[in-house]
């Protein structure tokens, strides 16, 4: 990140530096080239002028053969330190005089060349004719060492180099100073963009630095932020609304299931009571039993719907403990046995002999088994068979429950859809409602099995070839905590078993349920006080002597939990909670409030009998 932040600055400085250095270098190179040329021209000019004077002065010496004079003329070159050698040739081309007169360089040309000047090997060589009165009298040769010229050029170049370095320093300083006007706003913008994307705060705005393109950029950036902010807040609003709508739907479904269950309550109480009355004729009792079964099925469907809302809202929580899956499975088999018997379906069981334990919620696990078995019974034709097997695999630490049938089976397409919500398999499309149900059972079962860290899958060889469901659950570490075989309370509804008159305070705001339940309890020999609200209950309880409180939880003026807590603090009484919600936290709240039993409406009268039996048995012991 810091590297990136500086790269723009560096690049700007680099561009400015490079441009100025290139411009200066070109300028200095041109200056140097000009100076070089000027130096050469100047040197050549000086040498020519010198040659003209010496040649002019030497004409008489050559013509009148005065060697001393010729040498004397050349000796005047001492004042020109650049000129290292010189010579005079007579008109016949013979070397006549040299400079220096003694020890003249050996490389002097032996004969004169044509009038010419040439730069060679760091020297400037010149042949100049000696002419007197337009007559050729000889040739002068001069050679000038250009070392000094080159030396001066070197110094000049060095000075330019120093100036170039200085210029670069100044340029670096200035570019570092000025680049901020360009990079500053861009870096600020980049930092702001980073801040916005990190904080998701779209209300931040960049300040516009100037009226130029950078200002335009900032303006465009801010306009973009406006749009993002608008669409973001719109999206947030839409999400909030969707959440609210979803919550409303959940609440609605919960309320709906509650409202749907409540009317079933008195019906189930009545039907279950009547079906068990020995004083009624067998045919009548069978009719009541049919009513009871259908009410229970209705309640089951409503429960499924409620479970589904819990699953979709992630509120389904297991009430886990160590349980015996064999027992749970046997209970589930018992619940479907009557149906299977009605279709003359043969059950064969291979449940093993061990006592494996799993961690789980027995109610939920039974729901799973019940769903699978119910499914098998439903899709197996009359006279078919169902095999239930349970096998313990201690090596992998798992237990396999297999339910196989010879029913209509499944096609390959149907298998993956089977455990999805609202999917009953393709055969349901052709003949809707032939098999009934909402198709929620298996979807809920899968979720429940997964909550138990298990898997559920199905195998089938195809249509008409039956199906096999395999449920796979992890074994609990085989601790020796065996299930206490709870003493099955006497299922007998006989009122005669009540040893003395017990007082029950029944608090229920649903009038039909209250009336019927009160009548039934009275018929069992209990003294029953009724109340439709907490306020009434307080009045009724004020006199004391109440043994058991049976209370609805959702009361018009408060919660049954509060009532239980309040009364149990004042009186030594036990409680049974009746609730239409049946949610897991309800169970916890129920226990915390001091209820001994928690029954989900609609209830069969036998369930209340069992609960009361348990309470009074404990009280006796």
């Amino acid at each position, binding site marked *: 990140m810091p590297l990136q932040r500086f790269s723009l600055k560096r690049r700007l400085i680099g561009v400015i530096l490079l441009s100025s250095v290139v411009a200066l270098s070109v300028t200095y190179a041109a200056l140097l080239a000009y100076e070089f040329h000027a130096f050469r021209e100047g040197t050549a000019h000086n040498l020519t002028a010198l040659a003209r004077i010496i040649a002019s*002065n030497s004409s008489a010496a050559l*013509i*009148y*053969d*005065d060697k001393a004079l010729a040498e004397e003329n050349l000796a005047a070159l001492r004042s020109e330190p650049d000129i290292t050698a010189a010579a005079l040739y007579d008109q016949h081309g013979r070397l006549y005089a040299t400079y220096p007169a003694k020890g003249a360089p050996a490389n002097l040309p032996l004969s004169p060349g044509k009038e010419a000047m040439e730069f060679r090997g760091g020297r400037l060589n010149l042949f100049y004719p000696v002419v007197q009165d*337009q007559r050729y009298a000889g040739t002068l040769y001069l050679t000038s060492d250009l070392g000094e010229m080159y030396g001066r050029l070197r110094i000049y170049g060095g000075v330019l180099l120093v100036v170039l370095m200085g210029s670069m320093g100044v340029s670096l300083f200035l570019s570092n100073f000025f680049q901020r006007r360009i990079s500053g706003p861009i870096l600020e913008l980049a930092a702001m963009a980073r801040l916005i994307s990190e904080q998701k705060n779209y209300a931040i705005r960049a300040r516009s630095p100037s009226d130029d393109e950078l200002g335009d950029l900032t303006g465009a950036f801010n306009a973009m932020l406006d749009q993002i902010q608008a669409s973001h807040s719109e999206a947030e609003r839409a999400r909030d609304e969707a959440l609210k709508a979803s919550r409303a739907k959940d609440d609605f479904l919960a309320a709906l299931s509650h409202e749907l269950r409540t009317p079933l309550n008195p019906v189930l109480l009545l039907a279950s009571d009547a079906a068990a009355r020995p004083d009624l004729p067998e045919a009548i009792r069978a009719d009541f039993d049919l009513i009871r079964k259908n009410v229970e099925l209705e309640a089951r469907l409503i429960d499924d719907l409620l479970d589904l809302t819990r699953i979709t809202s992630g509120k389904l929580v297991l009430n886990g403990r160590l349980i015996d899956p064999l027992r749970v499975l046997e209970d589930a088999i018992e619940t479907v046995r009557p149906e299977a018997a009605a279709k003359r379906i043969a059950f064969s069981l291979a449940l093993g002999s061990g006592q494996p334990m799993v961690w789980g919620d027995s109610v939920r696990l039974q729901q799973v088994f019940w769903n699978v078995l119910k499914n098998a019974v439903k899709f197996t034709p009359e006279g078919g068979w169902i095999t239930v097997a349970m096998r313990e695999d201690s090596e992998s630490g798992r237990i396999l429950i297999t339910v196989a049938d010879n029913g209509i089976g499944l096609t390959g397409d149907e298998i993956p859809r089977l455990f999805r919500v609202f999917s009953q398999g393709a055969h349901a499309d052709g003949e809707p409602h032939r098999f009934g149900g909402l198709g929620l059972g298996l979807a809920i079962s899968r979720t429940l099995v997964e909550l138990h860290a298990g898997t559920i899958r199905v195998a089938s060889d195809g249509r008409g070839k039956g199906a096999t469901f395999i449920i796979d659950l992890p074994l609990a570490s085989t601790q020796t905590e065996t299930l206490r075989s709870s003493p099955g309370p006497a299922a007998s509804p006989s009122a005669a078993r009540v040893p003395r008159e017990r007082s029950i305070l029944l608090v229920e705001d649903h009038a039909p349920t209250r009336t019927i339940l009160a009548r039934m309890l009275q018929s069992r020999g209990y003294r029953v006080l009724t109340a439709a609200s907490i306020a009434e209950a307080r009045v009724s309880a004020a006199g004391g002597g109440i043994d058991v409180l049976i209370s609805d939880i959702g009361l018009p003026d408060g919660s049954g939990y509060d009532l239980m807590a309040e009364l149990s603090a004042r009186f030594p009484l036990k409680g049974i909670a009746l609730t239409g919600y049946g949610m897991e936290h309800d169970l916890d709240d129920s226990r915390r409030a001091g209820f001994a039993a928690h029954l989900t409406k609609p209830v069969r009268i036998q369930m209340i009998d069992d609960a009361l039996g348990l309470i009074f048995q404990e009280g006796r012991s």
Partner: protein
Amino acid sequence: MRLRPFARRLRSWATVVMAAFCCIYGRAAPTASEVQLKAAFIFHFTQFISWPAHTFEDPNAPFVIGIVGDEPIDEALTEMVRGERVDGHPLQVRRLSRPADAANCQIVYSSGDGEEKFRAARFHGEPVLTVGETEGFLQSGGMIEFITEHNHVKLRINLPAAKAASLQISSKLLRVAQVLSPE
């Protein structure tokens, strides 16, 4: 008229050959070398000395070099000046037999016996350059004298005499000569 380069080179070669000849034969023929040299010296005087403007009344008049005496310089000098001009005046070489003839000359060279006849001759301010080779020539009013030292021909110049004749001698020439100043 300028000499064409070829002709000049040819003449230079001739000089070289003669000089070489002199060297080979040593003192056997110094005269030939000296004569040649003196002819050249005399001819070159026309380049270093300026005659006054009124010297020639006729612009086409020749520039005459007169020769007096027994030195056989005529031929060499004639050869030297052929085709040459001084300020547009064609050069001529004449042998003078009497002093009066010298009046029309611009240069008079006298040698040996002949000099005696002209030594006394005075041109009374006429712009005539007198050149001689005998000792005492300058003392008797001559302007330029050839002297031979160590086999080298040198010049001596009587500057007052030349000035009296309105002749301008180039400093270059003065530098190669011994100059007799006015006292």
